[in-house]
């Protein structure tokens, strides 16, 4: 059995330490970006563009929206984007930048893909190299990588405004948030980040694919139609990789995603990519604290996330280091841990940490095959997603998901201080409870409902490459990932069938937009409320007790719900592996 090595510990410590250090500066920058007239050092070049965009969109940057208008704007914008991308994919054969002469994308796959990118999921039932033209990737998809991320951040900002304001009708202006997040945050950050990635060896070009003869002809895995040669895909990868991480989109340029040498060439690029996934979600907790004028609360939310993250990372790493006892007994896997489906340049620690990060956030980029993880190692990403991706989570969606749990936690335990539960001076009343539980319900309904349907239907079972508990895990993972807008997969499942394409697309749309409505309704209702001045009697929204309550609520309401299903999947699989030596 391999050990959790020193290198891994250093990497983990560095990761959490750096994450802690960047949280405040990013948070402060977010405060400026998310104010309509916030000053940033980009004002000089970007302000004119911003003003121009407002004029084109016909937006009054001073005019704010109530929650209904905000929701309407967000959803109609996203819907338009969905249709646009669908059209691009269906028409890619007559659109430019298609050197490989790829045909139109099938309708169900196009719907799935359009839904996937609109919802910030980036579930990929297509293989980038063989299905999509450069135009489809850059215009149809990368566009969403920016705007869907911005929409998520906007929704979170709207909720934070709702919490911070009182006796107010409006929660901001969606169009202003959308424009500013893109212009001041995502575009400049991505630009800098992609320069770094290019320095590490990620490609950025518009060349046709290269046909070459490999050094060792027997290792070629890519399509090989001409004897000993291999086709090496090319393309504008670096720019997409930057935003796929920063915007927690996760859709790989290449099918192998972050495991591909052109997408994630070095351990350093791996480390920075992981950090970039958490960069904005982590900064948003500081933004929360700053806006509600209770920085301790922001840090308490951060701490709860960090603790859940560390626990998940350690379990996953441990399980992967332990590897497969059956293989070890045969002397096949001496000491390396479970290296199946992992890249040698990342190893067990770099892969398990990446898997934890990408599923804690709703990123979904992968640098190893989660399907090949040990049962318990694979359980961690699955549970992370099922918690609602609130452990830092997706950009924006992580924070608003966690804040839903905060509301529930406050309501469940707040009575114990002898007052009507109250969160940062706002009474939590039946409407707030109603919309909060609705958000949780949608998640659970979609994941369990679609999965249950798939396990007993022909279309559901047809996609399985594995039987037994592992097959169940694959189905659960697919719908969890879709609903949670994660996008990573237990790749054993072939999801590219009409039924899976459509059900998964629906799961993604439910998990994103139906979930956002109650969140924004909550924002509107909280903004409306009067503020109760803080006193000794106020519910303490910071400190160890609060952190424990929040973690407890996430685990009991979020995770226990999935316990029976998880027991039938990964847990049984693990026990079968260790107990009776049966492998799936």
């Amino acid at each position: 059995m391999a050990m959790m090595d020193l290198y891994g510990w250093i990497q983990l410590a560095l990761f959490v330490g750096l994450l802690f250090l960047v949280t405040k500066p990013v948070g402060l920058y977010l405060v400026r970006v998310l104010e309509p007239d916030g000053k940033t050092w980009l004002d000089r070049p970007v302000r004119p563009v911003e003003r121009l965009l407002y004029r084109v969109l016909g937006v009054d940057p001073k005019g704010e929206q109530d929650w209904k208008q905000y929701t309407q704007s967000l959803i109609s914008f996203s819907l338009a984007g969905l249709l646009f991308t669908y059209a691009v994919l269906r028409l890619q054969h007559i659109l430019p930048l298609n050197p490989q002469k790829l045909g139109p994308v099938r309708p169900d796959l196009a719907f799935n893909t359009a839904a996937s990118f609109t919802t910030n999921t980036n579930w990929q039932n297509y293989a980038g190299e063989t299905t999509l033209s450069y135009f489809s990737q850059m215009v149809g998809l990368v566009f969403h990588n920016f705007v869907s991320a911005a929409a998520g951040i906007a929704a979170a900002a709207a909720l934070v405004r709702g919490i911070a304001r009182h006796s107010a009708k409006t929660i901001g202006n969606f169009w202003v948030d959308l424009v500013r997040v893109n212009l001041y945050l995502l575009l400049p950050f991505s630009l800098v980040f992609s320069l770094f990635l290019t320095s590490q060896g990620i490609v950025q070009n518009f060349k046709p694919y290269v046909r070459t003869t490999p050094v060792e002809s027997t290792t070629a895995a890519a399509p090989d139609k001409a004897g000993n040669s291999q086709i090496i895909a090319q393309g504008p990868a670096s720019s997409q990789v930057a935003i796929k991480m920063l915007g927690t989109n996760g859709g790989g340029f290449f099918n192998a995603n972050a495991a591909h040498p052109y997408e994630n060439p070095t351990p350093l690029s791996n480390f920075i990519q992981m950090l970039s996934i958490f960069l904005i979600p982590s900064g948003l907790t500081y933004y929360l604290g700053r806006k509600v004028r209770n920085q301790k609360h922001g840090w308490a939310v951060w701490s709860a996330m960090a603790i859940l993250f560390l626990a998940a990372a350690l379990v996953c790493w441990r399980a992967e280091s332990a590897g497969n006892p059956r293989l070890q007994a045969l002397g096949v896997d001496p000491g390396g841990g479970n290296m199946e489906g992992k890249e040698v340049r990342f190893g067990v620690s770099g892969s398990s940490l990446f898997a934890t990060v990408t599923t804690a956030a709703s990123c979904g980029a992968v640098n190893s095959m989660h399907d090949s993880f040990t049962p318990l190692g694979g359980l961690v990403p699955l549970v992370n997603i099922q918690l609602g991706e609130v452990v830092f989570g997706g950009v924006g969606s992580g924070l608003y998901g966690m804040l839903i749990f905060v509301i529930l936690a406050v309501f469940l335990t707040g009575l114990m201080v002898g007052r009507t539960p109250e969160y940062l001076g706002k009474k939590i009343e039946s409407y707030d409870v109603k919309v909060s539980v609705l958000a949780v319900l949608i998640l659970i309904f979609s994941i369990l409902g679609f999965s249950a349907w798939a396990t007993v239907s022909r279309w559901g079972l047809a996609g399985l490459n594995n039987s037994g508990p592992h097959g169940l895990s694959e189905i659960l993972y697919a719908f969890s990932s879709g609903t949670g807008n994660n996008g990573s997969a237990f790749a054993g499942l072939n999801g590219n069938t009409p039924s899976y394409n459509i059900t998964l697309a629906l799961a993604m749309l439910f998990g994103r937009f139906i979930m956002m409505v109650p969140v924004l309704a909550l924002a509107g209702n909280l903004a409306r409320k009067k503020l109760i001045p803080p006193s000794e009697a106020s519910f303490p929204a910071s400190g160890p007790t609060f952190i424990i309550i929040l973690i407890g609520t996430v685990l009991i309401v979020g995770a226990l719900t999935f316990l029976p299903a998880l027991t039938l999947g990964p847990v049984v699989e693990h026990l079968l592996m260790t107990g009776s030596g049966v492998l799936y």
Partner: protein
Amino acid sequence: MPASTRKLLDPDIIGRAALDAVRKLNPVHLLKNPVIFVTEVGALLTTVGLLMRSKSEPAGFVLQISVWLWFTVLFANFAEAMAEGRGKAQASELRKTRTCLTANLLRSDGSVESVSAERLRKGDLVIVSAREVIPADGEIVEGAATVDESAITGESAPVIREAGGDRSAVTGGTRVLSDRIKVRVTSDPGQSFLDRMISLVEGARRQKTPNEIALTILLSALTIIFLVVIISLKPFGRYSGVDLTMTVLVALLVCLIPTTIGGLLNAIGIAGIDRMVQKNVLAMSGRAVEAAGDVDVLLLDKTGTITLGDRQATDFFPAPGVTIEEMASAAQLASLADETPEGRSIVVLAKKHGLRGRSISDMPGAAFIAFSAQTRMSGVDLGGHRIRKGAPDAIRAFIGNDYSVEVHDAVSQIAFKGGTPLLVADEKRVLGTIELKDIVKGGLKDRFERFRAMGIKTVMITGDNPLTAAAIARESGVDDFIAEAKPEDKLMLIRKEQAAGHLVAMTGDGTNDAPALAQADVGMAMNTGTQAAREAGNMVDLDSNPTKLIEVVEIGKQLLITRGALTTFSIANDVAKYFAIVPAMLVGVFPVIAPLNIMGLRSPASAILSAVIFNALIIIALIPLALRGVRFRPLGAAALLRRNLLIYGLGGLVAPFPGIKLVDIILNALHLV
């Protein structure tokens, strides 16, 4: 109504509650309580399954599960019936007082007719004479009487009620002891104070409070979530080759949905109102009780609430050349004819200086001059000496010239400290200064200190000048005070505090308090107050003790804490139940899962049954806590949360493990599985 002496578990009430519990099985009644309704549907399903039973499950197991599921519903009903029963017992005592009353209705032509009290309408005039029972709520328009209100207050000392002023309201069902009064009826039959009180304590008119509604939504949502979990488990099971029976799925469902708090929620609410009644406070709604817990500003009248209500002599300051005994003696003599509480307190204080008690009848030769508001002096002419005591300016007028500098100093010092100076004079000689002080009620300082720790601000309202007010405020430990306050100021202050987001509680008795009582979030009217005041407030204190506002706040908090504690406990329980049932339902197909049975429960059947039984019994076990309420501790929110989380959160997490194990051991010992 000595309600406080009633035992928590009165056998009579238990008997009746057990019957009611069965009656409440009616699904229509249970619809209002979604968690228990789902439990009942579950019980029905397993019972039907028993009748058309499949071969796969032993009948004994299905039977036992069904029985315990029915018990779960019954126990929840029983908890509610217990709380209602205690209310009903109080109501029936109240009702005794109002059987077949007759009234002397005064006709417009002046004649008096004897009619049944049922026929009285608002605005009717009735005559009530000594020994008669007042037939309806009303206001005295003529006369004054002593009234025995023990029927509603439990206080045996009679009270004086008179026309005009703030003591004109009378309550139906109370008895006139002396004199004769003319009363205008202020309520229609069935609407009277007593009627409302009866229906309230019976729980008949009880509506869910905002907080209960929110909690019910949450509990319903959790129930729906677990329904989805259980329903989806069936196909997952089928995929995995596990045939999950209806019995097992229902058992898991009932264990997971929050039956504990669902079953006790109503009982907690009713018990909260009941606890108020035991303190002789009538809350007009459950909402008022809840609001009491949220209150963070207490508006307290100085007189009667913070101070005993009368100023009392606390010290003598003899003038130069006068011994304290000499002064005390003169002060006592001069005060014998002063029947005001202040005068009496001087006599009492003098006794402490070694003087024997004297009374007017002891001194036939003395001519006593009684205290009057005009002269503001009292005194005695004894053996050629005219001895007087009175306000400094009155005494100055009496002696004809100014008194000494030393006396001057004493007078201004007392005034500075917030006291009231009185002078004692023998002819032209001022003997000394008496200090009168408002006496602050005992124990208030500690109480206000506790309130501060709980985040509640206390504000004293007084008509006194700022100097006096500040002194009393300092002594009593209130956080703030409003001096020279007029009744309208209360309303303004409440509005101001509410605009700043505070919830305000106050007490009042006068008609001019009514607007403020209505505006306050918790307005506790004194039972001795006017009808207008009692109508305006949302609580009435039958003992007319304004200090009780403090206890009212504590009861409100206790109610909310109890509800929160049991919610947390209930939800934390789920962890253990998962560990009991999930391995049990899967171990047949996947024997490798056995290590998950961390409680080491004997068999799958015994594990599932144990969890169901524990789930039912915990409701019964917590009924006393629901009725009595979690013990209240005056701590800040952070400390309270930590403490309650440790007891009910961690307790709820841990307790079921040994609990379920114990049931399992017993079941196996009795060979029930």
